[in-house]
């Protein structure tokens, strides 16, 4: 049991190492992943400025623009990852190796978090400095707690999507594309979600980042305390408890179906 655990932790570390090394092997990628989100969020900050909205809205945009880095990473580097692995021929090696596939996903997730956190910190710092965002952080520990819960919930969702996207074959690219702007809108990446019509808020509540983003903004920008964001913490914990076993189920289902139909390693489909 312990031997298995240690062995699979080594597997996770190995996948993590590849992810960290691979994600940072081209310095211009890091530059792009920091610069492009800043360009986009700047456009929204200027739009709020043109409308004479209060300065805290620039803060909402900067926090949202920072969290987009994680959402994009979950989509492209977690959800679509098994699909890319299939295309490049790595997936079959994962499947024949005597390892837990969950360990692979865990390593991928932790490596992605490390890579994205580096970029997110840069986006946040530059955004705050350029736009002089007002910060009213009274409870840093709560902000860290919500952030960690959000990231765990998001990457667990990514682990679930990884198996589902593989089943969709070549639609993976399109599915990832479909989950970008619509989720940016629904989860309120550029405005507080409470301003949206109730029905849209209801739909948005099915996405973990909606709660995470709103909670982080309330604590960092609006200066709210632990009591105010308790529902956000509870919602994120529920998401994690539901998504974790679902991701394991989806992984087993995908693997069994793939073996039965013999198309798990078939490229270009």
């Amino acid at each position, binding site marked *: 049991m312990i031997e298995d655990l240690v062995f699979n932790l080594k597997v996770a570390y190995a996948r993590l190492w590849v992810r960290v090394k691979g994600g940072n092997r081209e310095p211009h990628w890091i530059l792009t992943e920091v610069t492009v989100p800043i*360009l986009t969020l700047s456009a929204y900050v*200027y739009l709020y*400025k043109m409308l004479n909205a209060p300065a805290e809205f620039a803060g909402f945009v900067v926090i949202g623009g920072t969290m987009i880095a994680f959402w994009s990473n979950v989509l492209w580097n977690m959800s679509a990852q098994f699909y890319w692995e299939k295309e490049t021929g790595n997936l079959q090696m994962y499947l024949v190796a005597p390892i837990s596939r969950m360990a692979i996903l865990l390593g991928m997730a932790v490596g992605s978090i490390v890579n994205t956190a580096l970029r997110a910190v840069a986006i946040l710092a530059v955004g705050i400095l350029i736009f002089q965002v007002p910060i009213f952080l009274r409870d840093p520990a709560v902000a860290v707690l919500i952030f960690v819960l959000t990231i765990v919930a998001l990457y667990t969702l990514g682990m679930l999507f990884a198996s589902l996207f593989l089943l969709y074959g070549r639609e993976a690219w399109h599915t990832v*594309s479909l989950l970008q702007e619509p989720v940016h809108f629904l989860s309120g990446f550029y*405005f507080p979600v409470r301003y949206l019509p109730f029905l849209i808020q209801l739909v948005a509540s099915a996405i973990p980042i909606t709660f995470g983003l709103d909670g982080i903004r309330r604590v960092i920008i609006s200066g709210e305390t632990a009591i105010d964001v308790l529902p956000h913490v509870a919602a994120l914990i529920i998401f994690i408890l539901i998504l974790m076993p679902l991701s394991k189920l989806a992984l087993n289902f995908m693997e069994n179906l793939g073996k039965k139909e013999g198309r798990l390693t078939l490229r270009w489909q």
Partner: protein
Amino acid sequence: MAVSTIFRSVKQAIWVGWKVETNWADPLVFSIYYVIRPLAGLLIVGFVFIIGSAVAGSFKPEYFAYMFIGNTFFIYVLQVTMTMSFLIHEDRSHYEVLKHIYLAPGSLRYYILGRALNGAMNASISLVLTIGLGVLIFQRLLGINIPIDWLSVNYPAVLLSLVIGTLCMISIGFVFSGINLLTSRIQFALPDYVSGIFYLLGGVVFPPEILPSWAQSISNALPVTYFLRAVRSSFLAQAYGSFSVDLLYLALTTVVTAFVGAVVFKAAEYKARRDGLIDRKEEY
């Protein structure tokens, strides 16, 4: 090369592009896919506008119309530049057909042109659907007054601006294709940079006049600024510039961009052939 051969190459490339883009879904699913992204983008900016106006206490419909037109027509920039930037990598490394296309009668540049025109065609589908649904959502459902008289729009002027604007975007796309013939590492970054810079500085969702002066100077040199001004002049009663002047600037910047695109692509193609890069497969 005979004009008929060029025409046939372009036509077949448009057809191939259409098949590649659409063969994963039935027409209904494809239409939904092609409208959801731009529509969600429009909803984001629309709600930023509505919420920002509400907290500031004043709503200016003429600026909403400014944003509405700018954001919907920006689809052309996104679609054409993305199509042309991913094309070389996809055909060389993913589908592994670039070498065959290169050796076939006709020419790689006419194939790329055809694929770009298919991108523009898809953008047109997105544009029509997004405008229709955007008006339905904002004007009918949310009761926002969009001051556009759809019957008195100068459609020939819109079409002319679109043709020149699309040519300009295709020229930028040829720069991307040329660069991507030489490397397989920046095909995803190139359109992101260009669309990000254009979106911020091109007067897409707000007038460039609110930007710092140095940024306004850059904005004045971008073709997308004149493309969107020319389109807006044709749609909106309130003048944001003179249509003929904006069209002239758009034509001038397009000529410059086309020259740069042709030179970069020719040089890249020569180097790629010399260095054996046409069929070099990389897993980036």
